């Protein structure tokens, strides 16, 4: 970089006298140093936040973890009154609600993405995806409130009795229909992860070159065959990323789940039975936790949740980064 232009654009620079130019140069050099410092500073503060988060969550849960060791992860009972703390049941509850939520959201989300990207005309696809995008903006507390006040009675009186009466799958939903349940929590989670699932899979489908669709059509495939056999497989890593990130989001949601799951830290006997997840247990136990070991145990639940979600999200991000790169330059209709 030439020194005579300093920070001033040439047009102004012509009029600057020698002395002023020298002064300016000194000042801008100072400014340049300052700029470098603050830029690195911003990055450093962010990195420090990340490190501090890890350290403080680990540190605050150490009391509980040193007492129970790794056994904390799978020890089955969570009974603060008896001084028994174990994450096992809550991990199971978290995985169960997430899995059921995915059973609901993956087909619906993927079907919607396919509809938006492959089947719907442009005038419909645009507004529809904007609407679904707005769903992503709805705060989880509002979804939770809706689940609690609106869905709970519907589930208790209609949905759960109906599901229990189904011929082959009824056993999954047997028992008393309360309303608050693993199933309701999963439905709420499905609603909350739907926008992620739709947006990311739609992006993945849209990134598949038109040439792939036309190759299938030109062989005599129907439009759906082209979507099913050519487009969706080509978008696989993007769709996997969508599911993985939706899983991460579902596992980590706490407040809305706490409102509708019924909060019973025991192995659910059916999907319509109440249960608990790591997140819902943290919400519910935190205020009542006794100082010291109690609080530390609740925070240790957070540490377990952090581990789970970071692993899942890192996987999802890696998938996102790996996808798309194949056969660059074939996008767009061939003419």
């Amino acid at each position, binding site marked *: 970089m*030439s020194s005579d*232009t300093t*920070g001033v654009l040439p047009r102004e620079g012509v009029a600057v006298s020698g002395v002023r130019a020298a002064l300016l140069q000194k000042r801008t050099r100072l*400014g*340049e140093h300052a*700029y*470098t410092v*603050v*830029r*690195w500073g*911003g*990055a450093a*503060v*962010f*990195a420090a936040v*990340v490190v*501090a*988060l890890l350290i403080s*969550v680990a540190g*605050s849960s150490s009391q509980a973890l040193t007492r129970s060791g790794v056994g904390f992860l799978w020890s089955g009972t969570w009974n603060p009154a008896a001084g028994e703390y174990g994450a096992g049941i809550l991990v199971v509850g978290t995985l169960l609600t997430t899995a059921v939520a995915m059973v609901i959201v993956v087909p619906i989300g993927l*079907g*919607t993405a396919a509809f938006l990207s492959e*089947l719907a005309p442009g005038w419909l696809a645009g507004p*529809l995806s904007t609407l679904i*995008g*707005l*769903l992503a*903006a*709805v*705060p*989880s*507390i*509002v979804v*939770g409130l*809706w689940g*609690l*006040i*609106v869905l709970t009675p519907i589930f208790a009186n209609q949905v759960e009795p109906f599901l229990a009466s189904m011929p082959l799958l009824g056993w999954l939903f047997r028992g008393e229909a309360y309303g608050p349940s693993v199933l309701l929590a999963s439905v709420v989670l499905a*609603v909350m992860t739907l926008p992620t699932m*739709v947006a990311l899979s739609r992006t993945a489908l849209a990134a598949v070159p038109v040439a792939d669709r036309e190759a299938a059509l030109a062989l*005599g495939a*129907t*439009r*759906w065959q082209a979507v*099913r056999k050519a487009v969706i497989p080509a978008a696989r890593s993007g769709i996997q990323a969508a599911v993985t*990130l939706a899983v991460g*989001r579902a*596992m*980590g*949601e*706490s*407040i809305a789940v706490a409102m509708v799951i019924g909060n019973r830290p025991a192995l659910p006997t059916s999907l319509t039975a109440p249960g608990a997840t790591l997140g819902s247990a943290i*919400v519910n136990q*935190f205020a009542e936790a006794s100082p010291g070991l109690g609080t530390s145990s609740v925070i240790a639940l*957070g540490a377990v949740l*952090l581990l789970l*979600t*970071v692993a899942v*999200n890192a996987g*999802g991000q890696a998938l996102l980064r790996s996808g798309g790169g194949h056969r660059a330059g074939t996008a767009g209709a061939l003419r």
Partner: protein
Amino acid sequence: MTVASALSRRDLVRAAAQRSLTRRRITGRLAQALCAVAAVASVAPLVALLYYTISRGAQVLSWSFLVNAPTPPGIPGGGISTAITGSAEIVGLALVIAIPIALLAALFLFERSGRLAAALRFSADVLAGVPSIIIGIFAYALLVLPLHAFSNLAAAFALAVLMLPIMIRADEEAMRTIALDLWEAGIALGARRGRVARSVVLRGALPDLVTGNLLAIARAVGETAPLLFTLATPVAAMTLLIYTDGTQAFPIAQETAWGTALVLLAFVLLLSVAAKIAAWRISRRAR
């Protein structure tokens, strides 16, 4: 390959294509119909959420609901003014913390490529997926426990941590899409990097920066879990008020929750629509 087998194969493929066509078409129609049903099912929750929040919230919503302070249970005439101002204060404070740090970190990423930047970017993406409740625990362990006090500052810190990764990535993206050629032009003219960054990049990317940050704000305003660990009283923020009142069995408390939910939802949706419109206008101008 013999001529005979080729001929028979041609007939065979022709027959199979013809025979299977009806099935293929019906399957296709069915699958397409299912996709359309899925799309309707995807829009339904939003419609239902809006419908219930508006219809239930509107019954409580009034000027006094917005400007009156909450009253103890049983005493009529209470409002949610403290929750609104509380939310505004916490989010405002969080913005003061997060915006400059995010902007600088984004400039760092914008100007650097390589392992360090990639690692930082990756951790931002992963941190963006860390459950907000963990971030609440973090703020609790870092600020509440040592100081023995719940505070708006602790809550604001939690929301700032929550927004940081979202803002960093959005800011960097904004700089990249809008300003790369401007940036290079500035460097080519011999302007120093700091000056280029300040004047050219930031000004060029400003509308996009606004969009990205608006979305991050919308996300932060709606967060509940981090506040659970950092605020002393539920009336200090809208989301917390919805949680505590909504989980009460009293109709009056639930009404307050719906009213607050409507205010919150209106604010958040307004923010995201504003962000969308800004983004749309930018992309139209760019064309």
